[in-house]
């Protein structure tokens, strides 16, 4: 197959042999090991857990280690590029700092109410809050949703689907004590209110999460807090 790899401002073409069950990450690895050792890309676990190998494949953000070539090949050709909406360090490697800084800006860290002297918090697995948390908790931080989001492209300050999804799982965490602070952090032009519900993040999330639903939930919680006069 013919593989076009974006390197800087241009594309470089490679001829790569097909194999059964071949993934896009296998293709990129083949290029680096056999055709051009200077090609830079990032991966770690190769089994869809670490979230480090996401790239644009035929203009669609995907986790390359779990994307089979069979599924995405178009006329025996593939195009591979670095993730959209992130600064490129080199070739297929993007700078993820801004992406993760936004998690911090969205108050994405857990702050519990209890001390180590207290007993374990008991959260019933079937409780309404815990069920909502469960739906969003499996994010692997791959930034596929961030690359799929048009609002991030239009408004670079926008926190993005992953950071807001993380905030939502904490807003619904009954043990957390920084709820109002977090709702303030996720409100406004750069927060949940900027989302247009295009659903691209949900469409592309490799873990089948729905950041769109999480963001809608944040909008509801913020609206309630505003109406109660808490914000």
């Amino acid at each position: 197959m013919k593989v076009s790899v974006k390197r800087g401002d241009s594309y470089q073409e490679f001829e790569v042999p097909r194999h059964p069950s071949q993934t896009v990450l296998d293709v990129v690895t083949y290029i680096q090991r056999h055709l051009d050792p200077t090609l830079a890309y990032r991966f770690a676990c190769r089994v869809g857990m670490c979230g480090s190998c996401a790239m644009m494949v035929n203009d669609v953000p995907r986790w390359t280690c779990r994307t089979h070539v069979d599924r995405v090949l178009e006329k025996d050709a593939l195009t591979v590029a670095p993730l959209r909406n992130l600064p490129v360090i080199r070739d297929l490697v993007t700078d993820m700092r801004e992406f993760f800084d936004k998690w911090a800006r969205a108050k994405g860290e857990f702050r519990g109410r209890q001390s180590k002297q207290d007993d374990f918090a008991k959260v019933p697995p079937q409780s309404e809050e815990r069920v909502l948390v469960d739906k969003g908790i499996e994010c692997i931080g791959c930034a596929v949703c961030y690359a799929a989001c048009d609002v991030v492209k239009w408004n670079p300050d926008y926190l993005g689907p992953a950071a807001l999804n993380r905030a939502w799982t904490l807003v619904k965490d009954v043990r957390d004590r920084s709820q109002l602070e977090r709702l303030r952090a996720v409100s406004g032009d750069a927060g949940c209110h900027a989302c247009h519900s295009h659903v691209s993040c949900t469409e592309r999330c490799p873990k089948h999460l729905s950041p769109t639903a999480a963001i809608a939930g944040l909008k509801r919680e913020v609206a309630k807090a505003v109406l109660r006069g808490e914000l």
Partner: protein
Amino acid sequence: MSYRAESFLWLMQRISAGVLALCVTVHLATIIYAVQGGLSAAEILGRTRGNAGWFAFYCVFVLAVTVHVPIGLRSVCSEWLRWRGRSRDLALLLFAAFLAWAGMRAVVGVFA
């Protein structure tokens, strides 16, 4: 703009969207029903003038448009034109005033 004001604008846009969904449905259904047999401008005005109920309905319609459109354009201005800040908000406030004026002018013309 503060997060409280942003949240308030978002809430207002959602509420006005709900009102508009109802108003547009009633508006279109009424037009389709009323013109079935063919209507002249004079006949329309004969039916609408002095009708307090429809006057109130279209006042609500205009109010919803006045609230909804500028808030939506606010996002369009910032995302597509990169126009943010006070100058954008003032321009949209003026545009809201224009919408209210133009809308009420039409409502008064048809129903008063």
